[in-house]
């Protein structure tokens, strides 16, 4: 047994309202730079839908993840080491910009500088790749909330697999949102695909990172990741990916997407696992067994033998303690309501999902049934083939059984708690029907519905003493805000060459100076810009409007 710790996440999809707050705060924190305009470390997809980049789940096409060879071993689907090196000069399976979208901005300046005329000036979209006029035809969530209709939906790789009787009538479609970040897999195929060895898994907490100093831009990781969560920065020529906000995690804070999640649907905690078992579990023959195989890799931290082995492996005591309180452990192992995203890619993903019951409840309610009655619900979970098969296509490699069991538990919890909420006598036969005790059901309800911040995010701080980090905040050059002389110098070798600014310092200073500055980060731009962040709504800050024309001006004109 080789115990390792992994920081993991569970998202409760029933609670996701598709507000994209996580995507926006993530973008502000990590990818608001040139070269990564199209990059969304966190994105929220509408399901059914094509996802981002378009149809990324179609591994026949994109060749991501692992395949099991005839000898029962794993190799990257896009090919082993030799094949990779021979295709290094032009990666044959890399998505192009068109599969993401061409990033754009608007020519706002034209609104201010257009000469007087009969027509209102418009801000034309300009491509951020070429600077030329462009036509906006797609973006990261273009098909949000089933936008685009059947034409777009028909290309959803999961929907295609479910059956040929895909719902063509639009009203019967179901909808839920799927927020996605990097899965920080136990068996990451991106790292396996990297010829330079720049992508690594941190041994302490399992976060998968790209060493920006070692990445040489061979682009194999983009193909290797079946979730397409590695992005190529087209300005620096380096791969970038979700970092699980490691600077925050290291000091015990949740990721920015979790911190700002409006629906409070994310849970972060530690999982202990047996690293020796990973390769074998990822290579089980039947894809339907992968869900159970991955669960068998996890180690129960409350088992004294595991705790002792963890201690021997150098895992600190407060980490083992955190693992015992991990909400992720509870959701995956105790209540068995969380499922992995696409276990069939054999990467052992570590961001799991509680499948949404709402499509089922919605259908029941729309057909005039009581959506809270346990028997209606159980029956509907069985009868509504399309949502179940679709969810199974996402979470269990197509095996409907674990999805059905999970949804039944959620349905039971819903009915059980309704009775309590209405002051009726609790019906203990409901939890019994799904193999739970009333206490367990109550605990699950508390965790899913009303858990507080400290219960949702159980994150032990990293064991590096923080004195120097704090010292550094005060001593780094304060010119390292965006656009300042300290950030993104254009070195002699192109964009952002030279010694990079540590990422934490960079964002810290950038945000601080932006939010607290009275002046303009962009000197020389004053007449047309005003920092509305500092405007309390009172008065009229300088620069909000063009200078008022005085009488003497008028006289001079006439």
């Amino acid at each position, binding site marked *: 047994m080789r115990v390792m710790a992994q920081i993991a996440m569970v998202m409760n999809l029933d609670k996701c309202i598709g507000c994209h707050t996580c995507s926006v705060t993530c973008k502000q924190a990590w990818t608001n730079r040139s070269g990564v305009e199209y990059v969304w470390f966190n994105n929220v997809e509408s399901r059914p839908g094509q996802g981002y980049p378009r149809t990324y789940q179609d591994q026949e096409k994109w060749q991501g993840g692992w395949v099991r060879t005839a000898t029962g071993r794993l190799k990257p689907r896009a090919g082993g080491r030799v094949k990779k090196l021979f295709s290094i*000069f032009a990666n044959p399976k890399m998505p192009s910009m068109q599969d993401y979208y061409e990033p754009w901005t608007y020519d706002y300046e034209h609104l201010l500088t257009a000469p007087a005329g009969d027509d209102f000036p418009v801000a034309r979209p300009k491509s951020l790749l070429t600077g030329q006029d462009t036509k906006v035809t797609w973006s990261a969530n273009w098909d949000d909330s089933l936008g685009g209709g059947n034409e777009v939906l028909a290309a959803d790789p999961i929907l295609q697999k479910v059956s040929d009787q895909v719902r063509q009538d639009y009203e019967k479609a179901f909808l839920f949102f799927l927020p996605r970040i990097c899965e920080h897999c136990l068996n990451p195929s991106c790292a396996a695909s990297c010829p330079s060895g720049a992508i690594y898994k941190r041994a302490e907490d399992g976060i998968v990172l790209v060493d920006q100093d070692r990445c040489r831009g061979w682009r194999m990781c983009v193909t290797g990741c079946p979730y397409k969560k590695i992005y190529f920065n087209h300005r620096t020529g380096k791969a970038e990916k979700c970092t699980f906000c490691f600077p925050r995690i290291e000091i015990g804070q949740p990721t920015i997407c979790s911190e700002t999640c409006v629906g409070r649907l994310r849970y972060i905690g530690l999982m202990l696992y047996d690293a020796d078992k990973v390769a074998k579990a990822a290579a089980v023959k039947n894809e339907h067994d992968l869900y159970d195989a991955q669960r068998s890799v996890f180690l129960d931290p409350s088992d004294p033998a595991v705790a002792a082995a963890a201690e021997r492996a150098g895992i600190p005591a407060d980490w083992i303690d955190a693992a015992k309180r991990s909400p992720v452990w509870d959701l995956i192992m105790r209540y068995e309501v969380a499922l992995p995203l696409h276990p069939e890619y054999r990467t052992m993903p570590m961001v799991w999902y509680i499948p949404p019951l709402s499509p089922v409840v919605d259908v029941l309610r729309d057909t005039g049934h009581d959506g809270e009655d346990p028997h209606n619900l159980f029956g509907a979970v069985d009868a509504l083939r399309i949502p179940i098969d679709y969810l199974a296509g996402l979470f269990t490699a197509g095996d409907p059984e674990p999805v059905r069991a999970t949804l039944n538990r959620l349905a039971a919890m819903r009915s059980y708690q309704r009775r309590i909420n209405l002051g009726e006598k609790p019906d203990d036969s409901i939890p019994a029907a799904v193999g739970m005790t009333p206490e367990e059901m109550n605990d699950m309800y508390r965790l899913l519905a009303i858990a507080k911040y400290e219960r949702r995010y159980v994150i032990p701080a990293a064991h590096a003493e923080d004195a120097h980090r704090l010292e550094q905040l005060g001593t780094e050059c304060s010119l390292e805000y965006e656009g300042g002389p300290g950030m993104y110098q254009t070195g002699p070798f192109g964009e952002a060459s030279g010694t990079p600014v540590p990422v934490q310092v960079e964002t810290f200073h950038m945000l601080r100076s932006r939010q607290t500055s009275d002046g303009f980060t962009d000197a020389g731009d004053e007449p047309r810009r005003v920092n509305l962040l500092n405007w309390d709504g009172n008065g009229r800050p300088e620069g909000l409007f063009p200078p008022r024309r005085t009488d003497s001006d008028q006289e001079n004109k006439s």
Partner: protein
Amino acid sequence: MNTTDILLWVVYPYLSIAVLIGGTIWRYRYDKFGWTTRSSQLYETTLLRWASPMFHFGVLFVLIGHIGGLLVPKSWTEAVGITEHAYHLMAVFVGTVAGLCTLIGMALLIARRRLTGPVFAATTKNDKAMYVVLAGVIVLGLWATVKANIAGGGYDYRETVSPWLRSLFYFQPDAQLMTAVPNSFKIHVIAAFALFAFWPFTRLVHAFSAPIGYLTRPYIVYRYRDPRPGLRPTRPGWDRPAAPGRRSNGR
């Protein structure tokens, strides 16, 4: 042999190699972050899929040919029974095929770079200068070969250029060997050394990080967090306080 010869065939090559080595070390230390292929595949795939492998495989064969022709002494190949005529035929045939692949691939890549909007927008001045020098060396080399073999009866550079180049490596440079070489070859050599000197300061450095180690390393790489307490590298003259209670996990 006059001063110009000494300058061209002794001083200039050594200077160029010194810049190549020193520049590469300096670049590696100063600019690891900028050390990348800066691939433009994201912008345009269709043309790149053909042109880039054509160019790169072509240029790799050209490289192998140069190593064989310049660094392996003629006496060695003759000792294993390859006559000058056989060698020449092989070199001209393989060399021309590889050279043409390289040339066509490069022409396509340069055309793509100019004609695809996003790719052109991502092209720096440094890139443009690099393309001029690189294309110059390749075209001059092909021209020298074609000229010598079509206009003349072939030129045996293994009697002159090769020993001269090897003499640079033993630090006994013999500029005399280069005086009688045809001008087309001389110009190619001069251009090549200019390319070597320019190399460390361009995107061409990615050639030095050809990922051979990938063939032998395990698929998944694990790394422990940096032992330094903050994110800033330790500066010279600063003592790091002893970190209390570090984990003693095997490193």
